[in-house]
């Protein structure tokens, strides 16, 4: 039985499979299954039953998310599916692999999602810099139209479905679901208040579902091989496989499809080959730039949404950034703060005016001008930018590395102040 549904067709040494090769390996079986007689409600039950959680970072159950979309005659006729392919979380490089490696998998997933919520139109919100993904996806879409998987009355199901490619003009905040919708509408990508949720009033005020690339890529497997197969893949209580990545000074950084529930140690020392020679693991961000630091003592925790939450961090995107003992932790957190300050959309006060202050303090620390007063201001900002205080999750995301960095690398910050320099700079 298939154990790597997401990457079974992916071999980056060659171009992705064309549609016929894709179909030969169980490709578009789920669409045929739908054509044989799966109603939108059936598919919704299947996805709910599978226990699939969103892979974008929030980890919200996909079936539940879809169920909020108003259905039936009195619901607005036009509904939209939007693919969040704006991968810009620092240290995250999983969606690129899926899109450039096997574009049809995502398209098949999109057809399933759109059919379930009866959305006749979908926009792929692709990162502007992913030029190769754009070419590959446009080609796959053309092939899908030619084979009748897209367009009018797909395989006689009476379901019309068109896909439109939109490349982002570059802004991290577009990864936030509602800011993405504003960007798609050609407006400044400020987030929107929730409620109302996009399922009620999304793209151009119509019911909309925004799903991450990897989430959609899980759907074909669920429909083709069934829930039992899907729930058999994982070891822990989360289901299905997931793309895990490791970047930083490890021997073999990369991205692999592994079952959820795998211990972190196996990912770091097994697949990533452990630390480069002469370097010790100092700490790591398990799920990209918006997650709390974890330490070597946490290596035996399993890669599972709930397990990692227990130690105060988040699995989020599942792409780990490794900090070795020869790299300055203050510099690393400072780099993230510069990123978050620059990528703030400027809508709400704490994030817009708070993060630049934090950023400037880190620059002073790096130039040996750090002070106790500034250190206290950093601590204040960890609570000041916390959840609920800002309009969206960007700044709270920034407080994850900031808060845990201040906690776990307290002595490094003190050394920067006392020695008036960064001791790591060789």
């Amino acid at each position, binding site marked *: 039985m298939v154990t790597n549904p997401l990457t079974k067709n992916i071999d980056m040494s060659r171009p992705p499979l064309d549609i016929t090769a894709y179909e030969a390996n169980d490709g578009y079986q789920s669409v045929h299954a739908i054509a044989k007689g799966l109603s939108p409600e059936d598919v919704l039950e299947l996805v709910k039953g599978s226990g699939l959680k969103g892979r974008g970072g929030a980890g919200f159950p996909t079936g539940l998310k879809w169920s909020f979309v108003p259905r039936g005659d009195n619901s607005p006729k036009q509904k939209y599916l939007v693919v969040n392919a704006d991968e810009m979380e620092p240290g995250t490089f999983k969606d690129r692999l899926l899109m450039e490696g096997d574009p049809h998998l995502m398209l098949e997933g999109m057809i399933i999602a759109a059919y379930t919520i009866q959305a006749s139109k979908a926009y792929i919100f692709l990162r502007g810099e992913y030029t190769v993904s754009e070419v590959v996806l446009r080609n796959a879409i053309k092939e899908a139209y030619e084979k009748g998987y897209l367009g009018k009355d797909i395989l006689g199901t009476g379901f019309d479905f068109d896909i439109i490619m939109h490349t982002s003009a570059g802004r991290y905040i577009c990864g936030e679901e509602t800011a993405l919708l504003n960007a798609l509408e050609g407006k400044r990508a400020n987030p929107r208040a929730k*409620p109302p949720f996009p399922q009620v009033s999304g793209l151009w005020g119509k019911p909309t579902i925004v799903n991450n690339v990897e989430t959609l890529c899980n759907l074909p497997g669920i429909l083709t091989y069934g829930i039992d197969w899907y729930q058999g893949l994982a070891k822990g209580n989360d289901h299905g496989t997931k793309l895990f990545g490791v970047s930083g000074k490890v021997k073999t950084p990369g991205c692999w499809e592994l079952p959820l529930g795998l211990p972190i140690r196996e990912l770091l020392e097994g697949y990533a080959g452990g630390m480069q020679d002469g370097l010790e693991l100092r700490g790591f961000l398990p799920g990209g730039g918006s997650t709390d630091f974890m330490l070597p003592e946490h290596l035996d925790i399993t890669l599972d949404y709930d397990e990692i939450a227990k130690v105060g961090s988040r699995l989020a995107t599942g792409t780990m950034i490794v900090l070795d003992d020869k790299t300055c932790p203050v510099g690393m957190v400072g780099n993230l703060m510069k990123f978050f300050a620059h990528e703030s959309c400027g809508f709400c006060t704490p994030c817009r005016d708070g993060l630049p202050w934090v950023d400037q303090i880190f620059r002073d620390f790096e130039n040996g001008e750090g002070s106790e*007063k500034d250190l206290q201001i950093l601590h204040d900002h960890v609570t000041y930018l916390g959840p609920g205080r800002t309009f969206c999750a960007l700044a709270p995301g920034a407080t994850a590395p900031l808060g845990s960095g201040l906690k776990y690398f307290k002595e490094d910050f003190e050394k920067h102040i006392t020695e008036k320099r960064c001791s790591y700079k060789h």
Partner: protein
Amino acid sequence: MAKIVIDGVEHEVNPDNNLLQECLSLGLDLPYFCWHPSMGSVGACRQCAVMQYRDADDKEGMLVMACMTPAADGAIISIEDEGAKSFRSEVIESLMTSHPHDCPVCEEGGECHLQDMTLMSGHNYRRYDKKKRTHRNQYLGPFVNHEMNRCITCYRCVRFYGDYAGGTDLSAQASHHHVYFGRHEEGVLESEFSGNLVEVCPTGVFTDKAFSENYSRKWDLQTAPSVCVGCSVGCNTSPGERYGSLRRTVNRYNSEVNGYFLCDRGRFGFDFVNNSDRLLEPVQRVDNTGELLADDQVKAFIKEFKADGTIGIGSPRASNESNFALRAMVGEENFYAGYSDVEHESMQVLLDLASDTAFHSPSVREIEMADAVLILGEDVTNVAPRIALALRQSVRNKAKDLADESRIPQWQDSAVRELAQHDLSPLSIISSAVSRLDDVASDRVIESLSVVAAMGHQIANKISASAPKADCSAAHDQVIEKIVEQLKAAKRPLIIAGNSNGSEVIRAAANIARALYDFKDNSAIDLCLLVPEVNSVGMSLMTNAKNPLGAALKKLHDGTAKRVIVLENDLYRRASRAKVDAALTAATKVLVLDQLPTSTTANADVVLPATAFSEHEATYINYEGRAQLSFQVHQCKKQAQPSWRWLCDAEHVDDLVERCCNEVPGLARLREVLPGENPFIAGMKVPRQSHRYSGRTAMTANVNVHEPKQREDKESVMSFSMEGMPAQKDASVHAASWAPKWNSNQSISKFQDEVNGELKQGHPGCLLIERKDSSGSYFKAGSDSIEPSANQLRLVFSYQIFGSDELSARSKPIQARMTDAYIGLSPQDAQKRDLRQGDVATISPLGSP
């Protein structure tokens, strides 16, 4: 009503509102920036954070933004909670990191909402010692300064200018902490409501440029409740005076009329009072040199006019008191209308319709409730600008219905706009040229005036067969059908017309409203009939229908009348030059009272200086028959007096109002707008100067070092001093909005019974005209007017917001925005006459003028 607990105290609140609005309505001091009573919530500034508890024993609670949280029944919140207070203080600290702290040189100082909120949040010590971001400013025209460094990025300016007022040339640009608010390139802000940026911006980014040239702090301004004399809407204003010159005008809240906003003509049109040409002494013209007259000479001259053979010409821009004083002096039969004969004829139609039970003349607030609007032949943005701003809110009623269906609270501004997108309530405009409301119009028909009227009659007939038909081409059948359906389906349809181009269109509009009245089983239909000037309605109520201006000029010309008194009126704007010249030269004695020299004062024997709107107490009646009292703000220099004081010996304006109530049937209830029998609190008057007014004793030191005796104001309930019972102690008069901890105009919520509710003191005005005549019937459809031959053109008057109003056209800032007289032509007509854009042309009237 819902019950919520705030800091342990239970309050009754309206669950349809958010927590911030309810807290303010309860008089609690909760700071905020991006929320605005008229523009709802967006949750950007995070200043109104409060702690919300799940239930009684939830001790920890969670920070929520009061403006984005419904005041749901059973909610438990705390404003004074330490966590909430420290967060609010940190928000201020964040905002101030890029702020220049230039309060001493910033013109917002003393009425700056940021100052107020900073003190209210308790943040006082600056820890920020890094680099501050700076911006370059833009030239934005004569009305508004631009100082972007003071910006706290609360988005209020673009939300007002773009979302609320429909302006298109101001936007938020750039991102993170470099967000910039400006035009895409330097130049004049195009919206007719750009002046409101000065009051909507909570800091000193947008400040009043006209005021900058002659600046004074808010607490040093002497002010009183006043009414704008720019047009017939009657917006309430608070003009500020210092050292004898009017410095600036700000909005004065009136729940029924202007709410929180003014148009730019109202805000900047007062400057004619300071015009150097102001007439300040009585002058006699002896072969075109002017000689000063002593008091006794003036009295003697006026006595001559008391004899028979004297006629008086009133003025639609003068107060009720002055018009009535002239009428009382010359007698009702000798008191003639001050507007053109065309306007006189249309005013008779308006007055009949005003007392007809089939219609209701909607206030500006009621206009905002219309869910289907039809405008016939009137360019509302230029004739009654504030009403155009209201129409931009009425077209959003569809969005509010959609929001209700999706259970999105109406105060959640962005969510409502996002849901509705471009789905607006229907607003149709049938007129002779493109107007400034076209961008929100669902249907737009451009036709000649006679066709506009014919289409109106056609619509009326389609709604109710009893309305007379009109023959008009089938080309418009489709749009007529659509408009008919929209009006029939609407819960509160609104028909708007005006008399800037005669009364044919008004008759058509009335027929449509009457047809709707029949169709909707006799519930009064909103019919808004616009007139151009501040007291057109007031004067028309005093003028005998048989006394148009033309009759007066004829009487002077053929000698049946020897002497004429012209009250604050330039007759050359009212009748043809030939007729006026003939009448004035024929008259043996011409007495003119006015504020500024006009072509009429040039032909007068004696010119008496009349005080301007801010220099006397007066009442005016707006388009809907609402009488409003305007208090005197400051003393006028030299010998200028209110016109009524020259013309009659009434001791006090209130006595004049009494006589007017008794003698003019239409104005019987005018006395209700006066401050009432015992307006004084503990016997004290209401001060025109704030309790921080400075320099009073040294003001005239350049004249005389001794402190002058405080000026007595025997007439009014207000005093020219700081002493007395200020407004916030429930005085009967509310002039400048100030409250402890609330120096900015946001203090208005302390004077309202609830946010957006009625003022606790002060009078929203009193509707004078009783509607008791239910015998009204349909007008006959007018015959098709004369067809122009080949090179003739049908004339339509285009009224401009900057320049068409006589007095505001003499105000410096307005003059910077005025255009020259122009003749608008279609490309084909221009080509036929080989005329290019900007050429100079001569226009000649056809037929007898």
